[in-house]
């Protein structure tokens, strides 16, 4: 962008071609009032407040849409401009019903602020008093058109960032309304409940149905209750959206997207709303079982009980009779300590994350292609979806599980005309949007992918001879017969993938739960053969379950890995043994999903505030064990079958870091105080470790992070600065050096 010079209020300023006059003014600290402008959204010049005088014309222009130009001379302040702005504001106030005393947004309203700034103490125009209806049909978002100034920020963000375009206009002129789906109540519309509209709305026209007046007390209630933002990271899924947790009087009153963090600046139903539903019976004291009931006790007794009972089972049945399962929605620091206490404290290698299998199966695929010592992350990031011209979503429904990823897909489809292919035996939230939706029979994904690869190789070559030979059996007819996908659809799929320049394959649990690394390896091979892999990654994105699913795997919450994704070697085992002061047990084949209740005598279940899948079934299995410890925030079927229950904080009550699917380490920052009696999980694990013979203690969670950094050097800088992503690769790493060995993809039968 070239430099230009313009004159603002008699002062020469430097600007860049491509900027708007408003941007130039803001950069130079020159005030201009705005109401409809929002950085990052398109500019529409709707509110007319940012008007400026332009030398050479007597027309006023909206600076938000005016391109900065060399030699342009404008004035931002004058009596006439002030008079015009006041008139505009008075027209806005009189047009609809702005009753500040009963509005949830009073004290945090941009229209109100402008009224104060311009000293508006009376309205010269007669009030219209239109009778407009409040829409509270939605679970979380209320719309009050009486307070709307038609800035259309909501319309723009709903379209430009979220991609659903639920909100738009109906009618014109004085009748114009913001309307969901052309006249439906919001609760019946295509709204995906992300709340982006609510965050950008300058007034109280769109507000949080359940917590609006809580926020109001915080904004208008004086300095004691003033709302303060805590910059944090969402704990809802593995994408790691940055949040501003708004706190007042030691209570979370709202969760905002951190729109300046550099990501898409949106949240989803989970991150904005459901994460605030701190529901459930809170556990505030350790509980120990006496017969049929759980009795409250003190921490020392509880932890001593745990240490004693675990010690007893280790002596009687061996350490392999003890297992530990952790929720990867916990922080890296907690996850690291958990595996340390289990390995070095208890002496068992039976540890796993709830979704450990997903990570293992993906890793097995990568190692099959790149060799067993490769630790590097090989997938793309969420941000890379914004470059894609084709999305192939297989075995996943991001509209349900990772809505912010679904928004990235929609943005691509609507704004860049990217193509979308959905491969799923069932209909998903993206099916209707797809250019092509195929529904292969369950378990036939491998065949389908091989069929696509065959067509690709036939068209463009690019595969080694052995692989090409293997692919020949995947004729369109054979693939159609096995998968149920028509040869026509198969051809379309293959053509689309072949033609794409930046395709991204997105997979989810529909693939990983089949527990077959060859499915993922086939995807990787496909991208290699098509020539889309870069040095550092396959254009593939695996949607993991939890905030630190990747962190859990990185830090050794896996029966086959040591922290740092390291395989067990005598050297590494010794290194950790020296650091921890106790021997490190061998790897095992323990699996959180399918452990044998007869082989396991004791289980330590570290849940926090996570909700586990199929809790009742799991509780039944746990009930068969000799000794169960559950460290959780709320009473659930799982705590009810435990022998010892240890209280845990919610996500909002603790600090630490998460590692998202892109390898980025992000901070979780404590926003509110936990109830009396609840100890931080890292502190509990430290005490338990001590009771089990581990030395050392940590003054705070940062010291745990230091230890991780010392033992996993790749994490040191990331934990210290929060800037680096952790990739575990070196400069010579190149995904394209994969060996596409045909037998790795061949199944014994059926070509899977």
């Amino acid at each position, binding site marked *: 962008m070239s430099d230009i010079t313009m004159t603002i209020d008699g002062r020469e300023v430097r600007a860049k071609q491509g900027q708007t006059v408003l941007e130039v003014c803001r950069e130079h600290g020159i005030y201009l009032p705005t109401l409809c402008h929002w950085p990052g959204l398109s500019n529409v010049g709707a509110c007319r407040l940012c008007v400026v005088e332009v030398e050479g014309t007597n027309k006023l222009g909206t600076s938000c849409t005016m391109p900065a130009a060399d030699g342009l001379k404008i004035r931002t302040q004058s009596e006439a401009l002030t008079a015009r702005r006041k008139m505009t504001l008075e027209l806005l*106030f009189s047009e609809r*019903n702005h*009753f*500040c*005393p*009963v*509005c949830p947004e*009073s*004290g945090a309203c941009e229209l*109100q602020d402008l*009224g*104060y700034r311009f*000293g508006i*103490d*009376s*309205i*010269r125009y*007669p*009030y219209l*008093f239109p*009778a*407009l209806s409040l829409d509270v049909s939605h679970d979380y978002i209320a719309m009050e058109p009486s307070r709307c100034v038609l800035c259309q920020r909501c319309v723009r963000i709903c379209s430009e960032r979220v991609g659903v375009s639920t909100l738009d206009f109906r009618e014109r002129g004085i009748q114009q309304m913001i309307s969901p789906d052309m006249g439906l109540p919001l609760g019946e519309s295509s709204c995906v409940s992300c709340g982006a509209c609510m965050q950008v709305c300058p007034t109280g026209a769109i507000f949080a149905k359940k917590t609006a007046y809580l926020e109001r007390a915080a904004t*208008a209630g004086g300095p004691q209750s003033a709302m303060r933002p805590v910059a944090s990271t969402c704990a809802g899924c593995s994408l790691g959206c940055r949040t501003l947790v708004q706190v007042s009087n030691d209570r979370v009153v709202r969760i905002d997207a951190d729109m300046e963090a550099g990501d898409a600046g949106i949240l989803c139903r989970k991150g904005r709303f459901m994460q605030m539903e701190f529901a459930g019976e809170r556990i505030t004291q350790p509980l120990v079982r006496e017969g049929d009931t759980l009795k409250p006790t003190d921490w020392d007794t509880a932890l001593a009980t745990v240490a004693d009972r675990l010690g007893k089972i280790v002596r009687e049945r061996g350490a392999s009779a003890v297992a530990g399962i952790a929720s990867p929605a916990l922080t890296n620091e907690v996850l690291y300590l958990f595996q340390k206490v289990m390995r070095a404290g208890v002496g068992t290698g039976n540890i796993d994350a709830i979704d450990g299998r997903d990570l293992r199966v993906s890793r097995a695929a990568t190692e099959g292609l790149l060799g067993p010592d490769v630790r590097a992350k090989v997938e793309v990031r969420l941000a890379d979806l914004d470059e894609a011209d084709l999305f192939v979503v297989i075995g996943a429904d991001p509209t349900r599980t990772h809505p912010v990823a679904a928004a990235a897909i929609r943005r691509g489809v609507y704004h860049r005309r990217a193509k979308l292919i959905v491969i799923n035996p069932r209909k998903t939230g993206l099916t209707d949007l797809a250019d092509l939706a195929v529904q292969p029979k369950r378990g036939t994904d491998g065949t389908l992918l091989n069929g696509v690869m065959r067509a690709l190789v036939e068209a463009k070559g690019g595969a080694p001879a052995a692989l090409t030979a293997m692919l020949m059996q995947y004729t369109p007819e054979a693939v159609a017969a096995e998968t149920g996908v028509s040869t026509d659809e198969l051809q379309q799929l293959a053509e689309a993938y072949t033609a794409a320049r930046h395709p991204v394959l997105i997979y989810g649990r529909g693939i990983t739960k089949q527990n077959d690394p060859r499915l993922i390896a086939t995807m990787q091979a496909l991208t290699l053969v098509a020539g889309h892999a870069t040095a550092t990654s396959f254009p593939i994105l695996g949607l993991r379950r939890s905030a630190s699913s990747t962190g859990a795997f990185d830090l050794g919450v896996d029966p086959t890995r040591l922290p740092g994704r390291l395989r067990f070697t005598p050297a590494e085992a010794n290194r950790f043994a020296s650091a921890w002061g106790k021997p490190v047990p061998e790897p095992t084949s323990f699996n959180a999903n399918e452990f044998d209740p007869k082989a396991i005598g004791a289980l330590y279940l570290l849940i926090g505030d996570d909700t586990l899948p199929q809790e009742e079934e799991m509780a039944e299995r746990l009930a068969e064990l000799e000794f169960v410890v559950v460290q959780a925030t709320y009473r659930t079927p799982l705590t009810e079958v435990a022998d010892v229950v240890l209280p845990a904080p919610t996500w909002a009550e603790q600090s630490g870091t998460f590692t998202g699917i892109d390898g980025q380490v992000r901070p979780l920052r404590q926003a509110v105080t936990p109830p009396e009696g609840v100890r931080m999980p890292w502190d509990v694990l430290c005490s338990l470790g001590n009771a089990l013979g581990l030395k050392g203690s940590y003054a705070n969670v940062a010291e745990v992070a230091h230890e991780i950094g010392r033992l996993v050097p790749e994490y040191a800088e990331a934990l210290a600065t929060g800037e680096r992503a952790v990739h575990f690769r070196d400069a010579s790493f190149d995904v394209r050096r994969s060996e596409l060995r045909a037998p790795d993809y061949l199944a014994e039968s059926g070509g899977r």
Partner: protein
Amino acid sequence: MSDKPKIATVWLGGCSGCHMSLLDLDEGLLDLAKAATITASPITDIKEPPEVDVCLVEGAVCNTDNLEVLRKCRERAKILVAFGDCACFGNIPAMRNFISLEETLQRGYVDTESTASGEVPRGEELPALLEKVQPISYYVKVDASLPGCPPSAEAILFAVKELLSGRLPKPEGELLRYD
């Protein structure tokens, strides 16, 4: 005594909160009483406003009585001040503008939670509800406005001081609030 400026205050369709805020001047009221004569006011309980220099009008215009009183005040005051959000903007009383008069009266006198057998009062002596509730500027010329729900004691003090100094008050900064 007769050289002191004369002040009247009145409340129309308001909750009297602005007058409570006026009372929040606390000992400042004594200073006010020294500097000006407070004539008709709900506080002094003198009903009929005489000719005054300043009249503070709280409340929106909701019924014929409000309108009559407002017009009387406008006639008799050199400076008329819209006192509080209801007088300035309509505010809460104006929220009945979205429903019909019949519904309003029904809800207010018959369907109330605390009434066993309500009746809409009728009688010639009763003021009639106006079709729409309006700010006072809808009917009369207003010389100065002091928004707030209620305006703070500081804002009121500021306004009174300005008026006593012969200036029309223009509240700004912390003194200008709509809430």
